[in-house]
C-alpha cells in the first residue's frame, strides 16, 4: 500500500500564468492600472518574447492594459508585468489620467458622447 504518497496531479496541462513573466507578479512600474493607455513608440528589440512581441504589435493604436490582457488571453497581472518591462525598454509609452484631474470640459464631452450613442 502506498497511502502515504501524495495524490497524483490531475491537471497536467495547467501552465502557471506567471511562468511567462519569470515568476514576477508585480510590474516594475507600480503606477500601471488596468485602464492605463499604452502605445508602441519605440523600435522593438529583436529578442522580445512571443507575448511581448504581441503586445508591441497590438499597441500601435492606443490601447488599455486590460484590452491587452484580453487580447493575449493572459491574466491582468501578467499583462501588467510585461507592459511594465516594455515601458522600461522604451518600446511603449503610457498615459494615465488621474480622475481627480479630469476637467469639467472632459465630463461634458463624455456626457455628449453617451447621449449620442
Amino acid at each position, binding site marked *: 500500500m502506498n497511502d502515504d504518497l501524495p495524490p497524483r496531479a490531475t491537471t497536467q496541462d495547467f501552465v*502557471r*500564468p*506567471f511562468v511567462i513573466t519569470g515568476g514576477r507578479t508585480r510590474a516594475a512600474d507600480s503606477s500601471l*492600472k*488596468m*485602464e*492605463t*493607455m499604452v*502605445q*508602441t*513608440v*519605440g*523600435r522593438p528589440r529583436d529578442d522580445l518574447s512571443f507575448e511581448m512581441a504581441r503586445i508591441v504589435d497590438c499597441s*500601435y493604436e*492606443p490601447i*488599455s492594459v*486590460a*484590452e491587452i*490582457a*484580453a487580447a493575449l488571453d493572459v*491574466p*491582468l*497581472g*501578467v*499583462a501588467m508585468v510585461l507592459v511594465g518591462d516594455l515601458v522600461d525598454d522604451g518600446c511603449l*509609452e503610457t*498615459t*494615465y*489620467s*488621474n*480622475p481627480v484631474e*479630469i476637467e*469639467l470640459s*472632459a*465630463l*461634458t*464631452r*463624455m*456626457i455628449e*458622447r*453617451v*447621449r449620442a*450613442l
Partner: protein
Amino acid sequence: MSGPSEATSVAPRARKVTSVKLVVAGGFGVGKTTFVSAVSEIAPLTTEAAMTTESKDVDDTSLINKKVTTTVAMDFGRITVDDQLVMYLFGTPGQERFAFMWDDLCDGALGAVVLADTRRLADSFVALDYFEARNTPFVVGVNHFAGSYHYPIPEVREALGVSDQIPVVDCDARNRESVKVALITLLQHVYEIRRASMAR
C-alpha cells in the same frame, strides 16, 4: 517619388489618449455585463485577475494552510469619446468574497453605477457601503425584472438607505436608452461634485 524613406522614419510619437474608468457594481446576476454590453462599442471583453488566497481546509485534521490561486473574471467595455479620451466600463466580480479585489478595480475610478434588483435589494448593500466609504461618486440604477412589482423610486431609496444627494434612477440593463440615462446621470453627478468642490 515617395517621401522620406521608411527605413529612417522613427516610430510615431504617442498620441495623447487618456482614459477614464467607470465601475458597474451590484449583486450576482443583477445585469452588470448586460449593462456594459448595452453601451459598449466592442463586445464586452473578459480579463482574468489571478490572485492567491489562503484556502481554509474543511478537513481540520490537516494543519496545512494551502495557498490556492483563484482567478476572477471581470467584464469590461469601451466607449471612445473622441481622439483624446476613452471611457472604460468595468463590471465588478459578482460574489462578495471577491470584494478584496475591488480596490484594484475601483482605485482611480471616476464613478460607479450600483445596480440594484428590487427582488434582492440587500445584494447591493456591499457595493453601496464600499463606494460610500471610499467617497467614490456613484448613482443607483434600479433594475426592474419582468413580472416583478415596480416599486416607486422613493420607496427603493428608503429601502436602500442612500442619502438624498445620491441619484437613484430606474434602469433596465437590456435597454440601451435606459442604460444611457443611468450613465449620463452618473457623469452629471460627477460633474456637479467637481463643480461644487471647485467653487469652494
